[in-house]
Each structure stands twice: as C-alpha cells, then as structure tokens.
C-alpha cells in the first residue's frame, strides 16, 4: 500500500475492484473469525450452566424439589438432601458479610476522609493488592492461625461467661474444635473485606468534591459529610460492593474447606463443625463413583450454588442500577 507517485492515481477500475473484493473477503473472514470465537465462548459458558442442571437431574428426579430442604446427607443409605450444606453456606456467608461490611466501610471512610493522602494511597494500594491474594492462602492462614485461636481463647471465654445466658447458650454450645461456622465466617470476612474496601473507596472518591466542600463550608463534621453527602450519593455502589463480596463468599471453596470442619449437619451453634455447598463438593466429589446418585446429588448441589451466585449477581446489578 505504498504511495507510488504517479501510477497510483491511474489504477484501472478493475484492479481497484479486485482490491475491494479482496478486502471484502478478508473482512467477512475476520467477522466470521471473531464471531466464531464469540460463539465458542457462548457455547462453552452456556454449556457450563446447562450441564450442571443436567448432571443433577437424577438427584432432582429421585428426591424431587424437596432435595433442597431435606436435612440428610448419608452416603451409606444413599439418601441426599441439600439443606445442611445450604444452611452452612448461607450462615457462614452472612457471618462473613456482617463482619466484612463494617470493616470495609470504616476502612474506606478512613482512607477517603481521615488519612493523609500519602498514607491513604499506600494503604489503599496495599488493600487492593491483597484483594488479589489467592483464596487458598486465606484458608491456610485461617487453618493455622484462626482455628487454634478460636479453640483456645474465643470459645472457652464465651462458654465460661455465657453458658447460662438464655439466648446465647445454644449459639455457643459445642466442643472447642476451633472449626465451624464462626471461623469460616471470620476467614471469609478477611478474604472479602479488601475487595469490598477497594470498591467502596473508589465509590466514595467518585463523589464530586464540590458537594463535600460545600458541606464542610457549612460547618459539617467529617461524619456529617459521610452520612449526609457521601453515603446517599454512593448508596447503590456501596450495596453493589457488598453484594459482590457476598457472591464471592457464597462460592468460596478453598478458604472455607480448611476451617469449616466438614460435618453435614444443621444446628444453632456457631462453633460446631458444618459444611458448605462448595466444601462438600470439593471433599466428596473425588470419592463419588461416576454415575452414582451421590455424584448426581453433588452436581445438583453445584446447580443450586450456581443459582445462588446468579441471584446475587442479578441483585448487585439491579441495586447498582446499571443495565449494561
């Protein structure tokens, strides 16, 4: 395509047409190429969603819709119900989110309104980096640090002081293994808090400076500005961050498997070993022979987990109010 000085202008119409035709061919080839890769992506990822339901059809067929609310997971009698792992997933996620939200909110408040810009940028960067640490690291840390701590300090302390308190007693009942819902919740909180903090910090910094400054000019304190200006302005973003964090906690496998104790049971105590959908899949899948009811039940569990994560994503979308 060099611009030869005289010849170029005199190109005959036929060769121009040929060029046109050639570029038309390569263009449609390119279109097909990228469209084809889009199709492959759609097929693979769509297949993932469908196959999960398909693999679990046997379990749904045998146990019916009751599968989700049946509290039995017994490989010996070949009876399976998803209630225990579902319960574990939901409670540990709730505990994790309830701890992580104040932590993330407070840290983001500190980073955007209190800390000096330099400190804020360093800590903010560190928090963002830590959001990228693989989850198995959090699991290992929880296993070697939090589990002994809970077993030796938190649970004995609580048991000693609140053994006879009416409502608390059943919540803290149990042998001090250190593993259980609370430990899993703590580890999940530590895992999702950096992510939530990073998002909330971005959301808070996106508030127009003029709004903040006007409020400060009227004599508002930092907390007034936070509560009356920043939070209303960025409410949807904050909720989105919380729900996205929740979505991560719901499907987390490695961090939870280390610390939850892996007992398929339901009960009030937050110190008793439980299991979650993801941890149950990770642990029992290798032992399940192909074609067994157990395997099918695990796949059905996977399907339910996918529904849960899908609902949380949809929730984050609607609450954040974007339609992209």
């Amino acid at each position, binding site marked *: 395509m060099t611009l030869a000085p005289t010849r170029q202008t005199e190109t005959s119409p036929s060769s121009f047409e040929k060029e046109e035709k050639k570029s038309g061919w390569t263009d449609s080839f*390119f279109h097909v190429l*990228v469209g084809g890769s889009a199709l492959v992506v759609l097929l693979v990822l769509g297949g993932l969603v469908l196959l999960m339901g398909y693999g679990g059809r046997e379990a749904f067929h045998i146990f019916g819709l009751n599968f989700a609310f049946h509290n039995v997971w017994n490989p010996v009698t070949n009876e399976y119900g998803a209630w225990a792992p579902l319960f574990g997933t939901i409670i540990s996620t709730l505990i994790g989110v309830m701890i992580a939200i104040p932590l993330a909110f407070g840290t983001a408040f500190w980073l955007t309104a209190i800390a000096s810009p330099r400190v804020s940028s360093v800590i903010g960067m560190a928090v963002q980096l830590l959001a990228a640490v693989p989850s198995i690291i959090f699991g290992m840390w929880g296993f070697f640090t939090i589990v002994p701590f809970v077993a030796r300090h938190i649970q004995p302390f609580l048991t000693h002081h609140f053994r006879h308190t009416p409502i608390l007693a059943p919540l803290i009942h149990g042998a001090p293994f250190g593993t259980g819902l609370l430990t899993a919740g703590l580890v999940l909180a530590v895992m999702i808090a950096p992510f939530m903090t990073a998002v909330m910090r971005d959301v808070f910094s996106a508030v127009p400076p003029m709004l903040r400054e006007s409020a400060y000019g009227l004599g508002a304190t930092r907390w007034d500005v*936070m509560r009356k200006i920043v939070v209303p302005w960025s409410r949807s973003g904050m909720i989105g961050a919380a729900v996205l964090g929740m979505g991560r906690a719901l499907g987390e496998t490695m961090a939870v498997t280390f610390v939850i104790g892996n007992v398929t049971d339901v009960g009030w105590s937050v110190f008793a070993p439980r299991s979650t959908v993801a941890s149950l*899949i990770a642990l029992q899948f290798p032992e399940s022979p192909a074609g067994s009811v157990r395997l099918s039940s695990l796949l059905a569990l996977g399907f339910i987990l996918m529904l849960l994560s899908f609902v949380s994503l949809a929730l984050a979308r609607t609450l954040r109010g974007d339609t992209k």
Partner: protein
Amino acid sequence: MSDITSKIDGWAPNPRAARRRRCDMLATLFGMAAAGILVLVLASILWTLLFNGLAGLSVAALIKPMGAPGSGGGLANAIIGSLIQTSIGLLIATPLGLGCGIYLAEYGSKLNRFASCVRFISDVLMSVPSILVGLFVYQVLVAPFGHFSGLAGSVALAILAVPIIVRTTEDMLRLVPVAMREAGAALGAPRWRVTVFLCLRAAKAGVTTGILLALARVSGETAPLLFTSLGNQNWSLSLNKPMASLPVTIYQYAGASYDDWVQLAWAGALLVTLGVLAINIAVRISARRG
C-alpha cells in the same frame, strides 16, 4: 427573636454541636479502628506467610520433585505443572477472549441479540464459583475419557480466564475514539485492518492488563484443578496424565500431619502469593506509567 439568637450563638455551649462533634469523634475512632484491624489482619497473613514460607523455602524444595513424607521431597514438579497448565490455559483463553471481546466491541451493538447474549453469559461467568468450572470440565473432559489430565486442568483455567479477557478487551476497545476508526476507513483500510492495526494497537496497554490480571487470578486457583488435573506425586510432563500444580499441592500438604509437608505447603503458598502479587504490581506500575 432573642430566643433564636441565643440558639445560634456560636460562643455559647451548643448541645447539638457538641453532640455532632461527639458523633464525629466516635465515627473517626470507628474508621481508624476498622482500618487498623484490617491492616493488622492482612499484615498478620503476610507475616505468617513470609515467616513460615521462608523457613520452608530452600534450593532442594525448588529442584526436587514431591516425595513421601520424610524423604526430603520438594515442589519442582508442582511448580513446573503449574507453569505448564497456566500457560496453556492462557494460550487457549487469550485468542478466544480477544476474538470475543473484539466481536462484542466492533460488531456487537445494542441491537445485536447474539452479542447481548454472549456479553450477559460472560459477565455471569465472571463471578461464578470456580469449583463449578471444575465440575463442568470434569463432566466434559475427564469423565468421558476415564482419567484426569493436565489438559483438562488447563481448559478449566482457560474457562476462568476468558470472561476477564473478554470484559477488558471490550471495554478497552470501546474507549478507542470513533475518529480513529473513521480516519482508518478514510484511508481505505478494510475493517479488519482498522480493528487489528488501529483499535487493538491503541488499546494494547489495557488489553495486556486484562490478560495479565486474568493470569494473576488463574494462577492461584485451586478449586477448578481438584477434579481436572488432580495432582501428581511424580514427575510427569504429559498433558494426558494427572499433573501436579502448586495450589493443589498446597491443599494436600497443608492438611497433612507431617511437618515437612506442612513446611513445603507454606513454601508453595509463598511462591504462589509472590507470583500473583508480582503480576499485580507489574500491572499497576505499567498502568501508572502508561
């Protein structure tokens, strides 16, 4: 009148202002406490990791393959396995993700039903629990062939990486000004040339960032590898056989009750974390420069 002036008199002690100031102080304390706790906890994680990881890290750990407890094994085959699986995964995911991202950005207008569908499902898959990807690949690539394989692990990692690459590629291509496309078209360049040599080149930095972030995300993943490449105690470079990988080795070794295995698990955890953090830091530095 006098009543009001006494209320807004700045010099007199004002109970409401005092209350506001107290609230502010409490909130400030709360913010500092939250930040302090978070930073301390995260520092504790890094400290535990460095302390235990450095203790377990040695030349032997890096060059010897895994072995029975007490036999002085290392992590070499797991490291190699991780490198192989991640790079093959990325090799599969990059062209696919790029192609799909290009399609969505250049041909996928709001009216294109197919493109909206692809975009939607790719976004859903970005936040899907990674263990489900492992289950899927098990059903497609492991169960029919009757054995676990390194290739299946790579494919699982690729499936996790694709949505990230698609999203960043599309976003970055959309940032390229329309004027640039028009200029290319005005010079008589066919559309694919405009896309590949103008738009993609202009968006190169962002697209590379996306690929690197996908790499960072994928290289620490354990759950999708559990049922696909399974892990392997022996040297094996065959993609058709079970293949070791660092995260799965960490998972197996950390729960074991042998001290040398636990130490190796820490060393592996340190390696993985350092790798992931290094990629992230590189991305950030290059983003700041670019």
